[in-house]
């Protein structure tokens, strides 16, 4: 994927002329008033009734024209991400996306049902109600609507990479839609902005970076956070054009956004800096001046340009609309908000109250943490019998083959990561087959783990099937915001009903002298965030099977391999590269009667040797490879069944002790485990040291055969023969 070269990027200031305003269709003026007034009424009602909202209210009052102008320039199928302060962006986008082409704001007696519905569901979500956009899980700061094309996130800058992902999906599919990331001046400092801008520029994505400069991040001015005030100049660093526009004027903002949209679709990303102002403090009903970080005079100057008051008045003065027309449209907006409020509250002596039956049922509090699991699978896909006609293959060949097969099977699967399309198959050679057969689906990214992880989220929410590769597991820490604040939480916090199909893969590189920053086992990290499923397949057949389960899953799945397994061999079942190992299904490596050993990955290769030796000494260990490690996918019942026969358990893994899984798995097996045990449960891990470079030290900190042996013997609790 490439972008076109451009001449020196432009930084233009868009100035609406009187002639352009006079030439603006009256309907557009009417819709702008409708949107601005709806947002204003909506926000005022919330501030006046803050007691009905559980949580903070970051009012957008003052910024309505920016959101309205932007939404007027967008298609309903364009996708907008926004921030903790997003009521204006969401109401404008959803209301205008739902406005029928023949809706005449000057003639209609009321907005249509279809226009009212998303506004009511937005208000309901902010109030935490079942009919809300996200069934009350997201509230004010985490809003989502697929149909109207909005997603908001409470993490500053967090919505920018997913908007790029939507733009990526649009470009690959050729839909002509754009992704729009609305964010504030504060967000232009954070890494997510820069990674998303870099990725969008490198790939020429149809992304509009809508910088709503309201001059303050909480109480810190732009001058103080940035050292300068014209933030649009940041676009120059990415060789992209920028347009600065008066964000207090909806038509000027519309014109700038319409030009930006045209550029984005034809050429690639563009930044629009809308100069605007929030009249209130960060949150709550007081003006910023009450907190003394800005003056009343400054606020008065901006109030004089109030988009809900001064702008309609300017239309009257210009003779473009009559007072009756303005009042009529404002009346539609007021009636719309009143109607939403009436649907969600009852009047009491103490003012409006929420009928208890409108809250979500508490039984639903856990619903939608994960998707519904795998579809029904044909028996031949899950049959694990090695194919008698097949040759053994290496673990590496299994990885190469199944990645290639996945991209061939799914034209909308895309593989993103650093170098993955270069060197004939990435730095590890694992995309070799994919590059050979489906090069267009293998996208080498800039070095931007957070950027490409967020892009994967946006593409996944748009319905594509992204696969992301982290060259080393430790590099996932660069992407923690997108991996854990966003990808892990997206299904749940946006209502539990939509799929987040992302496959992530990485390779444990302990034992190669890469040192403390290339050697972690990421299982403990990823399983700390439910929403992620985690597989650690040990054999070629298991890798293929877990991979295909991950591709069939509608949840994000991390698949961990280990370079120390690269040359190990095995024979695939007869389903070949279509073989599936469902979540919750372990592999019985070896039956035994004296102790159950749960182990996977490199550790399992050490366990195999120790167990064979102990068998000669009269201790018969049963070895189970769980294959799936997250709590929801771990084969709990099968492990308990085994321990029920052996009365003892050892968990052996090569992770650094503190980052290891064993303690958590033992806790997950409780309280059912304890009554089954004859002896204390035992864990074997690496030492609690970051894998050092010096070879003898490195070897010493990894899992040791002597420790495995001692644990199994002690747990078995019997004298050796």
């Amino acid at each position: 994927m490439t972008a076109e070269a451009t001449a020196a990027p432009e930084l233009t200031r868009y100035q609406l002329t009187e002639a352009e305003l006079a030439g603006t269709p009256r309907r557009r003026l009417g819709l702008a008033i409708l949107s601005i007034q709806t947002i204003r009424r909506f926000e005022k009602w919330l501030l006046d009734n803050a007691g009905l909202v559980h949580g903070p209210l970051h009012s957008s009052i003052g910024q309505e024209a920016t959101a309205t102008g932007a939404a007027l320039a967008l298609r309903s199928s364009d996708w907008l991400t926004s921030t903790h302060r997003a009521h204006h962006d969401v109401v404008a986008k959803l209301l205008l996306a739902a406005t029928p082409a023949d809706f005449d704001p000057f003639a209609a007696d009321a907005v249509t049902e279809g226009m009212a519905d998303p506004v009511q569901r937005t208000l309901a979500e902010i109030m935490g109600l079942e009919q809300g956009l996200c069934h009350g899980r997201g509230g004010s700061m985490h809003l989502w609507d697929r149909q109207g094309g909005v997603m908001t996130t409470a993490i500053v800058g967090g919505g920018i990479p997913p908007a790029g992902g939507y733009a990526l999906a649009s470009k690959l599919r050729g839909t002509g839609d754009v992704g729009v990331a609305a964010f504030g001046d504060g967000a232009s400092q954070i890494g997510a902005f820069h990674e998303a801008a870099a990725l969008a520029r490198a790939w020429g994505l149809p992304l509009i970076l809508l910088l709503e400069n309201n001059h303050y991040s909480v109480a810190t001015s732009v001058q103080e956070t940035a050292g300068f005030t014209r933030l649009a100049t940041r676009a120059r660093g990415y060789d992209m054009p920028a347009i600065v526009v008066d964000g207090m004027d909806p038509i000027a903002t519309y014109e700038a956004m319409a030009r930006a949209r045209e550029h984005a679709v034809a050429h690639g990303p563009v930044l629009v800096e809308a100069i605007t102002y929030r009249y209130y403090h960060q949150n709550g009903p007081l003006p910023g001046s009450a907190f003394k970080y800005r003056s009343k005079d400054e606020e008065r100057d901006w109030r004089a340009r109030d988009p809900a008051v001064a702008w309609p008045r300017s239309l009257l003065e210009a003779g473009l609309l009559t007072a009756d027309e303005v009042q009529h449209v404002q009346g539609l907006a007021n009636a719309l908000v009143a109607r939403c409020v009436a649907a969600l509250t009852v009047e009491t002596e103490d003012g409006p109250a929420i009928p208890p039956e409108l809250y979500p049922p508490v039984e639903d509090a856990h619903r939608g943490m994960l998707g519904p699991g795998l579809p029904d699978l044909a028996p031949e896909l899950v049959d694990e019998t090695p194919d008698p006609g097949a040759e053994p293959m290496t673990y590496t060949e299994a990885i190469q083959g199944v990645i290639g097969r996945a991209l061939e099977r799914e034209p909308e699967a895309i593989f993103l990561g650093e170098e993955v399309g270069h060197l004939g198959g990435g730095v590890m050679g694992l995309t070799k087959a994919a590059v050979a057969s489906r090069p267009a689906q293998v996208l080498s990214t800039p070095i931007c783990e957070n950027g490409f992880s967020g892009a994967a989220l946006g593409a996944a929410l748009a319905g594509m099937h992204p696969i992301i590769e982290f060259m080393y597991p430790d590099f996932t820490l660069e992407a923690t915001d997108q991996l854990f604040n966003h990808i892990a939480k997206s299904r749940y916090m946006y209502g539990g009903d939509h799929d987040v199909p992302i496959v992530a893969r990485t390779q444990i590189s302990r034992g190669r002298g890469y040192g403390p920053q290339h050697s972690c086992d990421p299982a403990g990290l990823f399983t700390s965030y439910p929403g992620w499923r985690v597989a650690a397949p040990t054999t070629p057949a298991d890798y293929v099977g877990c991979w295909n389960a991950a591709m069939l899953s509608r949840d994000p799945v991390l698949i961990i391999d280990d370079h120390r397994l690269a040359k190990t061999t095995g024979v695939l079942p007869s389903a070949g590269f279509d073989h599936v190992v469902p979540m919750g299904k372990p592999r019985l490596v070896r039956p035994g009667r004296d102790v159950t050993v749960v182990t996977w990955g490199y550790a399992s290769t050490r366990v195999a040797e120790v167990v064979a030796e102990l068998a000669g000494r009269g201790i018969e260990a049963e070895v189970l490879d769980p294959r799936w490690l997250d709590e929801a996918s771990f084969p709990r019942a099968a492990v308990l069944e085994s321990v029920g026969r052996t009365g003892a358990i050892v968990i052996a893994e090569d992770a650094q002790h503190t980052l290891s899984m064993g303690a958590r798995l033992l806790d997950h097996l409780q309280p059912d485990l304890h009554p089954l045990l004859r002896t204390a449960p035992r864990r074997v891990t690496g030492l609690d040291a970051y894998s050092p470079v010096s070879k003898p030290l490195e070897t010493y900190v990894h899992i040791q055969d002597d420790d495995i042996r001692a644990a199994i013997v002690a747990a078995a609790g019997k004298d050796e023969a």
Partner: protein
Amino acid sequence: MSTPIKMPNLGAETDEARVGNWLKGVGDTVMEGEIIAEIETEKANVDLEMPATGRLTEILIEAGTDAKVGTVLARYDEA
């Protein structure tokens, strides 16, 4: 008609704040937007403004006293 001035909602972090100091007294006629008191929270000191021009008739919460959001702090007669 006497109108209440209530302890404002200062954001989600707190449901209580302290009246730090009254800058106007009973009987004073105050313009809309003039600061009548300072409100102190753990995070910030904020100005309490006169909601509409009028004459203060009662001060119900003394300086230095904590009050919940929504508590009537004073009353005034609109001009």
